[in-house]
Structures are given as C-alpha cells and as structure tokens.
C-alpha cells in the first residue's frame, strides 16, 4: 500500500483530488433535493475540470507565463544595434508555465458563471410559480396542475 501511495498517488496528487472534487459535485447535482444546492454542486463540478486543465499545464520551478518585459527590450535594442537577426537571449520554455490551459480555463470560468446566472433566474421563476425550491415538492405540484399551456 505504501509503495502504491508513493509511486501512484503522490506524483498525480492533483489529478486524484480533482476526481474527488468532481465526484462530490456530481453526487450533489443528482442527489440533492434543493435546487440551489444542485447549482452549487454543479459549480463545484465545473471547477474540478478547471483543476484538471490548470494542473496539466504546471511546470516545476516555472514562473507565471508573463515574459520579463524589460530584459526583452534591452536585448532587442542591443540586438537591433548589432543588426543580428536572432534575439540576444533565447527564452527557455521550461521556465514559463504552459499558457494554453490558462486561456481555456478563462473561458470555462466565464461559461460556468453564465450558466449559474441562467440557472438562478430559472430557480427564481420556479419559486414564483410553485412557491418552493425543493425538487420533490415542485414535481408534486406539477402533477397537480392538470393542463397549462
């Protein structure tokens, strides 16, 4: 068990945790009776996927994906003065975190909030129509109202 923990879990710790968070979210989306609890579960479910994407772009000992602005300007000046085409200092990619997952996750976060906003609007209308935000009570009331266009 110890070796399994050392060899399998520690190097992928982030990925194990993201699965756990995702399952917590998924469980509550299906099992919770309260609509708002469902939505909180849904948001947690979506943030878990963010955790996967960002943690696959992490590099050990790498800084944030913003290039050191001033060093580049001096290098391009010095390089343009010597007239050599190549930039003076090469940017070592291993020093910078992988920027692509970050871009994707910006989109995913915003999509998550947008969905949450629409869902909350629907919850309010359900409350206005049925007077409750508990799933089972809402379904009972729907069966009660016989035909509504």
């Amino acid at each position: 068990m110890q070796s399994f923990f050392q060899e399998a879990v520690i190097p992928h710790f982030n990925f194990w945790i993201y699965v756990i968070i995702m399952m917590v979210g998924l469980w509550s989306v299906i099992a919770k009776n309260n609509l708002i609890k469902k939505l909180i579960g849904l948001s947690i479910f979506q943030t878990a996927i963010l955790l996967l994407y960002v943690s696959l772009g992490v590099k050990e000992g790498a800084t944030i994906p913003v290039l050191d602005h001033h060093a580049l300007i001096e290098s391009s000046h010095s390089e343009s003065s010597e007239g050599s085409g190549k930039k003076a200092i090469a940017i070592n990619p291993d020093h910078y975190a992988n920027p692509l997952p970050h871009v994707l996750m910006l989109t995913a976060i915003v999509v998550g909030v947008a969905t949450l906003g629409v869902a909350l609007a629907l919850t309010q209308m359900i409350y206005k129509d049925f007077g409750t935000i508990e799933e089972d009570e809402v379904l009972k009331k729907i069966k009660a109202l016989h035909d509504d266009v």
Partner: protein
Amino acid sequence: MKAKIFASIAVAITGAVLLYAVSDFPRFGDPRSPANAGVEGGSPSASLYYIENTYRDTKVPNLVTAILADYRGYDTMFETVVILTAGMSIFAILRVLRRDDAPGAPASAPDSSDHSIDGDHHRIIVATTCRIAAPLIQIFALYVVAHGHHSPGGGFQGGVMLGASFILLALSGSLRDTLVRFSEQQYLRLAFIGILIYAGFGFLPLWVGRNFLDYGALSGLLMTSGEEMARSHSMLGVEIGVAMTVMSIMFAIFANLSTRGRLHGGL
C-alpha cells in the same frame, strides 16, 4: 431516496473510469509532458511556440492575454457571446415587461419597499464609504483592462470589476439610484456595442483580404510601425470591447436577479 442511490451508482462508475485513467497521466509538474512540450508524432507543440514566439509576433509579454485575444481570439469572441447570451436568456426568463414599462423607460416609480438611504442610520456609513470607494474601484478596473498586456488582467477581469462597482452601489445604496446612473437602456446598448467592437476589429481585415480576426492587416489603418504593434493595439481595442460587454451584462444579471425582473426594490 431513489435519487441518492442512483447518484451513488453514477458517481461510483464515473469515478472508477476517471481513476482508471489517472495512472496513465504524465507526472504532475513535468515540464516535458506532452501538453507542455508536444508529442513527436504531431506538429510542433503549440505551447512551446507560444512561449518562444509570442513576443516576436505581437510584442505582448503577457502570454495568456496574447493567446486569449490574438491566437485564439475566435474562442474569446464566442466567450463574450456566451456572456451576452446568458444576459439575454435571463432577460427573457425574468424580465417582467408590462406594456408601459418598455425597456427604454427608467425604472418605475419607487414603491414603499424601497428603503432609501436617508431614512436608515446604519446604511449611511456603508453607503457613503461605498460611494467613495466605487470610483476608485473603477479606476483600478480600467488600469486592469489597459494593463492586461503586461500584467495579469484584461477584458474579463476589468469588466467584472467595473460591473462589481455598480453592484456595490446597488447593494449599499438602492438599486433605483444606481439605475438612474446606469439605466437599463444604457447597459443593454453597451453590451451590444462591446461585441460590435470585437467583431468589428475582426471584420476589418476582411476588407484587406486577410482572414477574420487577423489584426496584422490593420497596421495600415492604425498607422503603426509594424504588424506586431498593430496586433498589440488591436488587442487592447478588443479587450475594451470585452470589458464593456462583461460590465453591462454582469450588472444586468445582478439587477434582474435581485429584483426578479421588476427592476425596483431590490435587496
């Protein structure tokens, strides 16, 4: 009770499948993993290209903003469209449009439930501090939007903060006063103008015969030294468009949610 059992089964299956695959992942934080450095069979890794060539292509040190606005600008345009769609859906669901209360008209007459500021002592302290803090937040937000090229930030973050400043005013003071400053007609129009700016920047290269969203073609229009600077400036323009849309939609969502579409009273 049935839902709980079904949920547990579904979670168990999904969890098992996910964990089954986790052991196949590269080590966490490994700089040479396929995502970070690509696979020999495929084309050269995108992220390596971004890190090495972004500054050469666009003169923008913040890689994330560069990818966000230029390389994958098409994604971001649809992200703003997502926000606009959410705003419109919430409008369609919640907004109570009585015949007279056409969207253009300012919020209807204040009714009793709208407790204005002066009547309530505790709120005065909060309200005045917020009224002072709001402009500061907005200035910082504009800095975030403009400085997105060099430091973390950009259209989305700045836009949300601008929206948050109005939400702060609405929360501390009354929604009715905030709506006077930032009426429904204004924020709806601003939302659409934001995307118009973004799509406009994308549409211009088409006249010059270059593909959609290819900012390099705008160097003539923007009178910049080279294509790279044109890309950098148009990215800023695009970020402003995004900020406008995000600001107005975030405030619109809050205004509708807090008053369930009646746009008076509020929290």
